């Protein structure tokens, strides 16, 4: 599903360049649930940005579902993001004047799906995250956990190839975190490929594979026995 070869990325900071990613080789198969771990400055966010087509790689290659991701213009990148990727953010990033259903429907809007169909699909995904009865509520009327579940529904609405989650539980207490992880595990059980960036070991343990980043290189890449979040809920 994801194939990264010899990926390099550096940022210019004034006169000297900061080499953030120093040759990453990494691949993800369909249906995997991968945690990308590392302390701050390890390059995990940069890696996620590149995976999310929010940033461009300097060297190496990135193939997503067989499509080489290279030299995309803004429009093309937007179309690819819409088609291939679903984003889940730490701070949820819901649009605050749109109802839960409208937020979920937003990626479909950019796919030029008709209004009625958009709404139906949004309700379907809200039902999957258990928030159908909250569909007409504004984000301000939802709890943190509910907001993240709406965001997950939104990420799934466009039926992307890969879900990218950047610290999805970073702003939640542990009980809510486990609820969200339980949901993510269930979505993964249904066959969706998910990448989670986190620095919390207990969250990483709930994935099926942990990739450890340190100083821009992968220091550890292991398959683990998944801890089910269900038992903590």
């Amino acid at each position, binding site marked *: 599903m994801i194939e990264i070869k010899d990926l390099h990325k550096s940022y210019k900071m004034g006169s000297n360049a900061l080499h953030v990613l120093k040759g990453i080789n990494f691949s993800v198969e369909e249906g995997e649930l991968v945690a990308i771990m590392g302390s701050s400055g390890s390059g995990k966010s940069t890696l996620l940005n590149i995976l*999310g087509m929010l940033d461009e790689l300097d060297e190496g290659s990135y193939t997503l579902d067989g499509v080489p991701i290279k030299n995309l213009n803004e429009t093309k990148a*937007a179309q690819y*993001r819409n088609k291939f990727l679903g*984003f889940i953010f730490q701070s949820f990033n819901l649009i605050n*004047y749109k109802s839960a259903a409208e937020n979920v429907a937003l990626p479909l809007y*950019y*796919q030029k799906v008709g209004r009625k169909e958009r709404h139906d699909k949004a309700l379907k995904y809200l039902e999957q995250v258990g928030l159908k009865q909250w569909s007409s509520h504004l984000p301000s009327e939802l709890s943190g956990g509910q907001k993240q579940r709406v965001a997950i529904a*939104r990420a799934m609405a466009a039926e992307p190839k890969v879900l990218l989650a950047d610290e999805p539980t*970073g702003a939640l207490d542990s009980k809510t975190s486990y609820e969200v992880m339980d949901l993510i595990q269930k979505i993964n059980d249904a066959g969706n490929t998910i990448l989670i960036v986190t620095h919390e070991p207990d969250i990483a343990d709930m994935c099926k594979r942990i990739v450890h980043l340190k100083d821009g290189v992968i220091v550890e890449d292991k398959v683990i026995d998944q801890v089910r979040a269900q038992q903590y809920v």
Partner: protein
Amino acid sequence: MFDRDIWQEIIYSIKNNKLRTFLTGFSVGWGIFILVLLLASVNGMQNGFYLQFNDDATNSIFVRSGSTTKAYGGFEANRKIQFKNNDIDYIRKSFPEDLEYISARYYANTTARYKSETGSYSVQAVEPEYQIIEKTIVTDGRYININDLVSKAKVAVIGRKVKEDLFDTEDAIGKFVEFNGLPFRVIGIFTDDGDDNAERSIYAPLSTYQSIYGNTDYIDNIALTYNPNYDLTKALSFSNRLENLFKRRYKVSPEDQSGIRVWNYAEAFSDISSFTSVLNAIGIVVGLLILIAGIVGIGNIMVFTVKERTKEIGIRKALGAEPGQIIKLVILESVFITAMSGFIGLFFAWIILAIVGPNIQSPAFANPSVDFSTVFTATIILVVAGVFAGLIPAMKAANIKPIVALRDK
């Protein structure tokens, strides 16, 4: 364009910045308000000017006689010049190319009586072609024709006011009215736009009046129209030739401005036209300058809006919004604010014109109004202005990197 989601967002954005939107929108509304009022005022002046002239065909020339002020050709000064019937034939023969219509005029006053009603009116004794020169509209019956002239018939075409005075609601056509005791048959009734005084006069055949008053061939002055294909230069050249010819014919000094006067409407008309078009241009320039201030304001508010919504735009782009869609959103909002403000300004200007306009009674100012083309032009200006105001902020918005939505925690 008629996408509900886009409008929802625009309305949200405006709602969130009510005061700011109002203040900047006000400046655009104000600009359009002033632009429209200025144009309407110029239009009012133009109407006022034209109203002074619209009695007559715009290609008309009037030749009048007076008393000489200079001794010339063996004659002393203060000689009265008197035109005669043969002057008409003379002009006809001298300027067959230039001339369109021509008529002599002879003025008299009369006391008219029908049954118990009487009134005092001016009579213009004219020839049939005078109807076209004066643009007289005959609403009932007919105008004087050549038979009336040949037979010196005692017939009259009376103004609408004269008819009202003497006949009230009674049918006047075919009835006999006494003019200073002589019975004249009413053959027609005429109206004149916007000038009640003109409707208090009477037309009669020239020959009839000449025979009644001393059996003369005297005429007071000559009205004519020139070839309607003539432009201003040709028209002026014609009236100059006419003036020179008449001065020679009556032995009036070429420098004498009072013995014979040739009054060419084309000249006055072109003066007024250029005057009002300059005023118009000034109005447009001043209005547009004020409008520019408003447009800069709109651009300003859009820059703020985009800045405030940076994160949201980043999220949208992460979710798959293309730059074009973001640009469309910002520009539509800008056009919407600009157009709404502009139309409100237009509306208020229109109300003021509707209230004040009809109450202005001044000969030089009439019916100040904006026509459809002004409204149409203003609309185009507003939409274009809105696009321009939104362009820079929209580009800014489109360039927002979605990465900021992720980074900003």
